[in-house]
């Protein structure tokens, strides 16, 4: 089994897995970082969103070989104490219903606001369109992204 060095949430760890193993399952099963969620396995729902060198990507569709040497941030590493403005906005607005998709939503929103600090409503909708919320808490997701943008500005 090949060995890979992965930089996750600022720490470098070595894992021995097959080269086609999606980073999602390495995070969840090998590193015990279960905040990143499995939803569809084909990059369609966004529940597994992480940051790769600051960009929001679908961890279910990226293999370990594709991410070696890059910097990975998961929901657990977004902040030490849930103090990231997006996390705080999610709490302030009380977004979740079941809560399962929310880590992915937060990772998409935080990468987006990093690049567009002052988005329009339409830009927020487009940025968040790739993340499914089956409970359809979309109204609050939208409001929380707006709130975070205001608090960050």
């Amino acid at each position, binding site marked *: 089994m090949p060995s890979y060095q992965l930089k996750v949430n600022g720490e470098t760890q070595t894992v021995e897995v097959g080269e086609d193993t999606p980073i999602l399952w390495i995070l969840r099963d090998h590193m015990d970082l*279960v905040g990143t969620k499995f*939803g569809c396995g084909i990059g*369609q729902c966004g529940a597994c969103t992480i940051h790769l060198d600051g960009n929001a990507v679908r961890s279910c569709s990226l293999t370990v070989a594709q991410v070696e040497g890059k910097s990975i941030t998961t929901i657990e590493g977004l902040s030490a104490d*849930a103090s990231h403005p997006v996390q705080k906005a999610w709490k302030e607005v009380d977004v*979740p219903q079941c*809560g399962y998709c929310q880590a992915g939503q937060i990772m998409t929103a935080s990468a987006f606001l990093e690049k567009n600090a002052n988005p329009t409503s339409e830009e927020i909708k487009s940025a968040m369109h790739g993340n*499914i919320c089956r409970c*359809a808490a979309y109204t609050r*997701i939208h409001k929380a992204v707006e709130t975070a943008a205001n608090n960050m500005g």
Partner: protein
Amino acid sequence: MSTSSKLTFSRRGFIRTSSLASGGLLIGFNLFTACSPKAKPPVDISQLDFNDFNAFIKIADNGAVTIFSPNPEIGQGVKTSMPMLIAEELDVAWNNVYVQQGILDTKNYTRQVAGGSQSIRFGWEPLRQTGATARQMLVNAAAKKWGVDPSECTTHEGVITNAAGKKLGYGDVVKEAAQMEVPENVVLKNPEDFKIINTDVKNVDIDKIISGQSLFGMDYKKEGMVYAASLRPPAFGQKLESFDDAETRNMAGVLDVIKFGNKIAVLATDTWSAMKGKNALKAVWTEDTKLESTADHDKILTDLLNGNKVETLRKDGDIKMAFAAADKIVERTYHSPFLPHNCMEPMNFFADVTEEKIHLVGPIQTPERTAQNVAELLDRDVDQIHLEMTRMGGGFGRRLYGDFVLEAAEISHLAKKPVKLVFSREDDMMDGIYRPAIKYRIKAAIKDGQITAYHLKEAAINTNMYGLIPNFFPAGAIENYQVDVANYQSNITTGAWRAPYTNFLAFAEQSFFDELAETMEVDRVQMRLDLLQKVKGTTDDRIQYSPERMEEVIKVAVEKSGWGKKETGIYQGFAAYYCHNTHVAEVADVQVEDGVPVVKKVSCVVDCGIVVNPLGALNQIEGGIIDGIGHAMYGDFGFEEGKPIANNFDRYRLIRMREVPAIETHFIQNDLSPTGLGEPALPPAGAAIANAFKAATGNRLTQQPFVKNPDMLRVPEKEIIG
């Protein structure tokens, strides 16, 4: 038997107390005794521990309050709102309360269930009584200490004060309180004195959710656990003939391959290896029972609607005579597909079956029934089962069915290992317990400007509407009224899906009323109000809805939505519906963009009695409306030779952010007991938008999903030009 404890029985739902070994007071209440006549209290009080209750409070010597929430949490918010009811009457500050999910107690109790939007409705009285009883015991203990009458004492946020101004914290008297008689007939607060109920309280798990902590069944791990993925027949009606697992067994991480029934489980060291191993299995499937297709179902259901083999669920007057005497008859047939639930967290469960016990952990809406089924399957005593409920990544009815728990238990039993069974999205969508495909035919007679007959006919796969539905609106409002149902038994598994039956029936009926009003050339809203007048003062106790409450939500919706007063270019659609004991009216605003009607806003008025947690309630209403719009617009699912036509989100469309309208919700303020919230906003949404689309395009939609007929979702060419 310990002398420091006391066992008393008050009311049918007995309350018991016990002093804890660690100090403190435990008070428990069997919430649902009334549902379980077999429930018996344990005789030996010393054997009592907190597992004996399905709702209870623990107060420690230091005054810390823990409230155990009895019912499964699927996103409907009961893990927050049920403890709020206890805390209100206990009179403690919400931010000093720690909420913990209760575990399943299979010994005595039933209705530890999430489903039917009933948790708060059933919990309203007993949960508040539990809190009030505990509060009274604490007050009695303090009064005894002070040598005063309990009536001289007041409480505020966990502190008892007497007439002389002396104060004692709950923690100071908790030992004494545990030895007090359990008071009967405690007085509950008047709604105007509520301090926690009807205030915005955030989701109790919010911090864990936003920081990605382990919370869901999918996240659960235990030492020595292996992962399992199951290969099941790809089509309904197939069985396993033979299989070749040579490639799978050679794969890294794969530990074992186990055949059970018509399925094959691959056990591996991690989820990915289990899924990969499963995909490498080469199985041969043969036809066991008929392989059914959506085209077959369409014909079968249409034949049932045309035929006379029906069961009559309600019959008032004589519809036959009324139709014969009618000036005009309106008839319309409505079509719906099967629907998968698509919980974001795919089905999964942990099972550790050993000779001594069975340990089950995961997301399940029906823990008790499932534990019993596992006991039966493995021929074990249900007392050997310890079931822990995790937070659920959605339910929508899917997790009422414990098929995946049984599977996990069987695999663990055969493998003799602790096993975590995980469904892929494809497994989840292809091995569902679907919302059945249903067709409705509605026929009404009009005579002298009045609706004189109403005939509702249902043709469904496997099961028909439950018994209360025929007594929903317009039952009681039309003299000659009949509801007939018929079904076809299919080998495709079906079950409850958020707002069972009404999720589509509301669309059919509320679209039909729109059409009726058009035909009769009367105001759509006034027609409904006129019908409701006829139900007021009814002596028919089968009628489920309240005409007065329905009238109010309709009138407020008219006012709040600006119904009939919108500027040119905005088309409105109206729907009002009662289900899950809640009355809802919705108005959709649609605008035409590039010839296509787009939903811009939904105004919603809800009467669910007292709103326990407005912050959570609003989320449920908004989610329900968007979910209703999403499935009416896009939800398409069917079968080709027994095989589902979609298996993941690339081919199954769920509503997404850009398709979401603005939503404005208004709750009717009253002091009536709270009713369901998780489901009732969904059913009217499809009709509200379809009626608005009709206003915008002239096209009457009768088939879901609407995108299936794109031509119907366009304004006809000539109108754009003209």
